[in-house]
Every structure is written in structure tokens, then in C-alpha cells.
């Protein structure tokens, strides 16, 4: 495993050099996006006199929806974009596609952890709100949204290496998910006959589960950590990584 770890570490060094070198502002952008969305949500809620369905501050309600969505979206788009940007590295004999995916996915996980910690703890502190109900469950939700982002990025990155337009189209394709993933509402507000439609999207149940984990008074009717789709995505990731490691182990010594 050591050569794999060394390669992944080297790729992370290079990516950090990119982010802190030529794209220093883009790293700051990672914090600005969720904070601006939360601000926009508060204004929209006030403008439309929207009563939030859980007894808490609107900013905290929005943060528990926006943060998992941002983790998913940033992981998917940044990993895909970074793989495309580093495609020439794949010409080096020891470097494989899965090295790039793992290196960039870990970096995104670290970025997401910092963003979530600062935004959530900051809001709890500023709003003097009661502490989050079940922090380990909330962290599990964040991890699952990250893993869905990574799983899909395996496919989008592969595709983007062949069709460059994928990196430009991807944000447009993701836009509807912002509105249908439960960022601004919870499952109990949806007519029971329609819940299954939204539940096709695994983000919906995960974000609702995040609300259940964050707020003691809310019980999600749709969230289960081992729900079929989440489980399916985890299996896809496992199969992809296993097949790539098997392929790699034949060629690394070369």
C-alpha cells in the first residue's frame, strides 16, 4: 500500500499548490458559497413569510440543509474538474485514475470538514442556540453526502476525460437538485403520496436525516442510514475502487 499512499500524498501536495497558488480565492469561495446561500435563504423566507417547520432559528435550519448539499456538490464538481486538469499526470507510469480520485476526494473531505465546523459551530455560538441534538449522526450524514459526491465523480471524471464539455454541463445539471433535495423544506411538509418521488434522489433522505440529527424535535419519515440508494452508491464506490486497485497492483512495479 505504501507506493499508493505516497502517490496519493504527492498528488494532494500538487493540488494544494494549485489551490493556494493560482486559485487562492477559490478556496475562500468554498466558504462564501454556503454562507451566501444561507443569507439568501433567510431573506427569501422573510420575503415570503415562510414559517420553518422546525422550532429553531432559520439560519440553523438552512445550514443543516445547505451544508450537506454543498458537500455533495463541491465534491462532485471539484473532483471532476481536478481530474480533468491533472489528466496529463495519468501519463506517468505509476499514476492511476483512482489515485487522482482518492487524492482529490480526501482534499474535498478536509475542506468540507473545516467549512461545516466553522459554519455550524459559528451559528450555534452566534445564535446562542441549543447544541446540535446528535452530532455523530449529523457527521454520518455529511460523510454519506460526501461519498455520494465521490461515487458520482468517478463516473463524471471518466466521462469528462473523454468529453471536455462535461465539466461545463455538470453545474447546470446539478442546479435542479438544489431545489428538490430538501434544502428549503422537510419531508413532513410533502404530501405522503409524493414523498417517494423526491426519495428517488438520495440527497433528499440524507438532508432530511441531517435535520433529524440536528434537531431533537424532528423525526424524519424518510431517512435511514442504510437506505437502499445510499447503500447502492457505497457498493458502487467499493466495486470501482476494488477493480482499480486490482488493475493497479498488476502494473505498479512495472
Amino acid at each position, binding site marked *: 500500500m505504501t507506493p499508493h499512499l505516497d502517490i496519493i500524498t504527492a*498528488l494532494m501536495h500538487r493540488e494544494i499548490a494549485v489551490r493556494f497558488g493560482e486559485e487562492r480565492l477559490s478556496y475562500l469561495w468554498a466558504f462564501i458559497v454556503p454562507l451566501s446561500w444561507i443569507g439568501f435563504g433567510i431573506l427569501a423566507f422573510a420575503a415570503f413569510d415562510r414559517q420553518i417547520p422546525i422550532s429553531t432559528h432559520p439560519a440553523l435550519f438552512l445550514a443543516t440543509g445547505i451544508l450537506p448539499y454543498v458537500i455533495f456538490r463541491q465534491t462532485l464538481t471539484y473532483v471532476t474538474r481536478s481530474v480533468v486538469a491533472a489528466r496529463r499526470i495519468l501519463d506517468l507510469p505509476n499514476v492511476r485514475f483512482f489515485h487522482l480520485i482518492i487524492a482529490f476526494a480526501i482534499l474535498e473531505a478536509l475542506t468540507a470538514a473545516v467549512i461545516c465546523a466553522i459554519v455550524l459551530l459559528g451559528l450555534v455560538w452566534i445564535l446562542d442556540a441549543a447544541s446540535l441534538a446528535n452530532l455523530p449522526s449529523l457527521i454520518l450524514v455529511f460523510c454519506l453526502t460526501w461519498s455520494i459526491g465521490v461515487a458520482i465523480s468517478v463516473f463524471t471524471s471518466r466521462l469528462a476525460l473523454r468529453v471536455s464539455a462535461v465539466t461545463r454541463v455538470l453545474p447546470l445539471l446539478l442546479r435542479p437538485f438544489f431545489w428538490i433535495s430538501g434544502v428549503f423544506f422537510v419531508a413532513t411538509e410533502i404530501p405522503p403520496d409524493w414523498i417517494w418521488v423526491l426519495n428517488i434522489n438520495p440527497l433528499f433522505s440524507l438532508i432530511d436525516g441531517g435535520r433529524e440529527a440536528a434537531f431533537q424535535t424532528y423525526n424524519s419519515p424518510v431517512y435511514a442510514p442504510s437506505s437502499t440508494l445510499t447503500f447502492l452508491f457505497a457498493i458502487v464506490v467499493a466495486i470501482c475502487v476494488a477493480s482499480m486497485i486490482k488493475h493497479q497492483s498488476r*502494473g505498479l512495479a512495472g
Partner: protein
Amino acid sequence: MIELRAATVWTPSGQPILSPTSERFVPKEKIGILAAPGSGKTTLARIFAGLQPPQQGRVIRSTIRDTILGQENLLHPHMALHAALTDAATLLGLPHQCAIERALRFAGKGLNPTQKVSSLSPVQKSALSFALSLQRPGQWLIADDRLVPSDPGLAASAESAVRLRLKTAGLIYISKNATQLQRYCDRFFVLAATNLIPVPDLKLGPALFRTEAEGATHDTA
């Protein structure tokens, strides 16, 4: 060993590069392929290095992938030189200290390990990339158009380094420069009209290119 079995190659836009070809290159052979500009040298080098498969047929290799000599962007421009060399050595599977010392010695004096890669001259970056990629162990060296850096200050030491490496490795050198091919290779091919034609030497090469060009003119007419 590298063996082509009815390997057929064309560009993504469908322009043919290599018609179905079967050929076998044994270890330590020094293969020179004379190819005209724009005939698909880089794609062929990638096929021989195992970086991409042919569109049809197969390429059978005793190792999974080989290095194309002197690849650009091996060193990240935003990193300090020492950190960039360390990461590049890792990605190539080389022992760090030895690889970095050799690369710095080859690229010449006056390099500061703490300076940014972006502050190096193109010649220095090219020399460092060349020195690193040459150190990678493997059965074959693959060269696309240029085997050694063109800088006169480096040519002599680069040539001796390549000669030393070629004692244990085979070479597939694809170039438009017949003189350079004859300098390093002992078995020759000409890529003409998408055919890989074996030739005893490269005197016939330009004539084959002319035939190809005349054929193309005739087709257009």
C-alpha cells in the same frame, strides 16, 4: 517485449495513423521510426508506451506502461523546486534523494531548492524533467520526436546519460529526423501512408514520404 497484433490507430477525428500492423520488438532493440510531421508521432508514442490502446487489434507488452522521455509539466510550477522534484520522483516511482541529486546535477549549477519552479527557465525545467524520466527503471525508453534536450550546453551530458541507460533498455524513437534516428537506433521503419514499413536504413525514407505526398496529390486531383 512489445508486440503489435493487427494494431490499427487513428485520430479521434477519424484520420488514419496506422493501418493494421503486426510487428514484434524484443527487449533491448533500438527501433527508429521515421515519420513525417503531422503523421501521428505523439499518438504512436503513447500507443508504444502503453498509455492508450489501439482502436483495433492489440499491443502486447511485458510491462504495463513505459515512460515517454522528457515529459513536460512533471514539475508543478507553483511548488518549491525541492518539493516539486520530490513529488515528481514519487509519481515516477524513484527513490527521492538519489533522483533529486542526479536531476539537479544534470540541470546545472545555480539552482536553489527553495526557489519556485515557475522561476526556472524552460531549458532548466526541460532538463530536470528529462533527467527524472530517464532515471525511471523500465525495459523501454519511448521518445517522441526528441530523445535528448536540444540545448547545446546539455547535449553532451544528455547523450552520455541516454547511452548509459540504453545499455539495459530498449528504445522506440519516433522522429522526422533521420540523422538522429541513425545515431541511436539499429532497426528502422518508415511510417508512410499509414504503413509501418521496415527498411534496412533510412536512405529510402524521404523517397517514401514523397510517394505518399504524390499519392495524396493524385487522390485530390
